[in-house]
């Protein structure tokens, strides 16, 4: 998300360094948004006896947010108030607003579940640590993949494809994004109920 901002930064300064420099706050903001959403689940999951309820709750939350994204199509005025110099804040806000962190929750809980079944007898403290480490891994992997893909695209547009590519390549993914939130939530819900 936000790769055109890196293109803009590069072109405004006429330097590819400015483009790369803009990718850092974009990545950091996105990562922070992931962690903010996932870490609380990492703590909750230690309550092993409540595991199913937590997974059902997370599934419902993701579905609910997907429906909210489908229905709420207002101009995102709050996002538009972020300053052009605050790319990190923008990236954080946009990831939260789109539910990018939430999307990872079912995947994350799925990964934890495999580990937890074996370790159910272990102390809660160890469990939390393991889960938090997993949360960080999931977030970092996701944010890295995103920024690598966005960075490559930004570089290609900046160096070779030109600005025309920007408006041509831009698709309205609002509906499909909202739908995929609902699908991911529903799969997570079905799996946890099937157990």
């Amino acid at each position, binding site marked *: 998300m936000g790769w055109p901002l890196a293109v803009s930064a590069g072109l405004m300064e006429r330097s590819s360094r400015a483009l790369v420099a803009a990718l850092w706050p974009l990545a950091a903001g996105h990562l922070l948004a992931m962690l903010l959403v996932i870490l609380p689940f990492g703590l909750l999951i230690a309550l092993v006896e409540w595991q199913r309820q937590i997974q059902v709750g997370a599934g419902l939350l993701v579905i609910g947010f997907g429906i909210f994204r489908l229905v709420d199509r207002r*101009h*995102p005025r709050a*996002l*538009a108030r972020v300053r*052009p110099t605050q790319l990190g804040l923008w990236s954080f806000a946009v990831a939260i607003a789109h539910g990018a962190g939430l999307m990872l929750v079912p995947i994350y809980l799925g990964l934890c579940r495999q580990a937890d079944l074996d370790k159910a007898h272990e102390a809660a403290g160890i469990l939390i640590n393991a889960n938090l480490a997993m949360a960080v891994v999931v977030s970092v992997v996701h944010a890295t993949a995103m920024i690598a893909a966005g960075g490559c695209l930004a570089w290609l547009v900046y160096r070779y494809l030109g600005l025309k590519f920007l*408006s041509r390549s831009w*698709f*309205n993914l609002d509906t499909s994004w909202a739908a995929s939130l609902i699908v991911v939530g529903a799969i997570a819900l079905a799996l946890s109920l099937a157990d």
Partner: protein
Amino acid sequence: MTMRPDPTFHASPKLAMEAPPESFAYTLLLSPDFSKPDALAVIDVKPGSPTFSQIVHTVTMPNKGDEFHHFGWNACSSALWPLAGHAFVERRYLIIPGIRSSRIYVVDTQPDPAKAKIHKIIEPEEILKKTGYSRPHTVHCGPEGIYVSTLGGGGKDGTDGPPGVFIMDCETFDVLGRWEIDRGPQTLHYDFWWNLPRDYMVTSEWGLPPQFENGIVPEDLLSNKYGHRIHFWDLRARRNVQTIDLGANHQMALEVRPAHDPVREHGFLGVVVDTTNLEGSIWTWWREGGKFHIEKTATIPPEPAPKDRLPPLLQGFGAVPPLVTDIDLSMDDKFLYVSCWGTGEMRQYDVTDPKKPKLAGSVHIGGIVRRTPHPNGKSYAGGPQMVEISRDGRRVYWTNSLYSTWDNQFYPEGMPGAEVMANANPNGGLELSKDYWVSFPDGYRAHQIRLEGGDCSTDSFCYPSV
């Protein structure tokens, strides 16, 4: 809601220039004696079309006395900026304020501009209640939605509180509220524009409603009581950061035209009249070291005239002031067009060096004393006024009316609406097109022009032309 960004949105000014040329020009019609409802005229400007330079559709409003003046699109190229968060809004609705009634009409131009129709009407009471402002004027599309400048505050004569800018939603057209958090010393308003990536706004000053609604007040002008300051704002913080006084003799600092390329941190401002010598002037502002600066960079002299050929208002001066009432900057930031409404001249300045405008072309038409006819032989009352440049910079359109009551003072013999077009040479030079002449219905005058798909005073860009 579309699947792809609106094809009329362009990332950079250069891409906007390369886009297909306009097929329609939208022009506001006003009934100067308020006897008929104001209207929006849709004009065919496609060369070779059988209805070229003719009105192909008119949207007549349901009220009288609105006095149409300026207007704008609900969305523009600025939507292609991720920070605006909304790339899939369409350039579809024209936001048309009534400067006298404070009513706002939203006109839907899709799917067929020749069948444009009223989409929504916002009553003056709602605007006043939600913003405390009246007399809406300039409309620009930006990050938070639609920004509208106003000339009046509350109360019957609009002097209860200062005028300012308010925000409307770009899809529902709900009036959301005032834009300013801290207006600093700003008490008057007229035009505004910005540099979005650099995050600043620039606003100018005309006068309060009692100073213009019933005509120009000569005593106020001669005692320098019209606006003469320019304000610079932090756009996201919605705060006035700097106000510069041009000197009280520089009366009526009107149009603000920043460079379209966001890398360039300069712009222009037109001043109607210098009360010490009747000159009109062009000012260049720029930002350097975090501060704004402004300098008078071009002047246009008055033209002496015998008393008996002047309207009563000007007889004491024995001269016609140029009256710089509108300016417009081409998309490549190379040419600045300057309307001299008094002397009847459209000037084209080469502003490649922004602080040294060079006169590159000029066309005479109308004028208080000159009364130059159009090359097609028709007489043109008034002078060149609201000017709009095609995106590619090749065609320059303008109309002749300034403001109902002011028209009557400067051109007491009457002013039938007129719209003409000049072909601009990319290397400088301007020539009136003989076959472009729009005939308007009797009893109507014409004001601002907006071009289909955007024009040089609509779109703001967030990526530079490289």
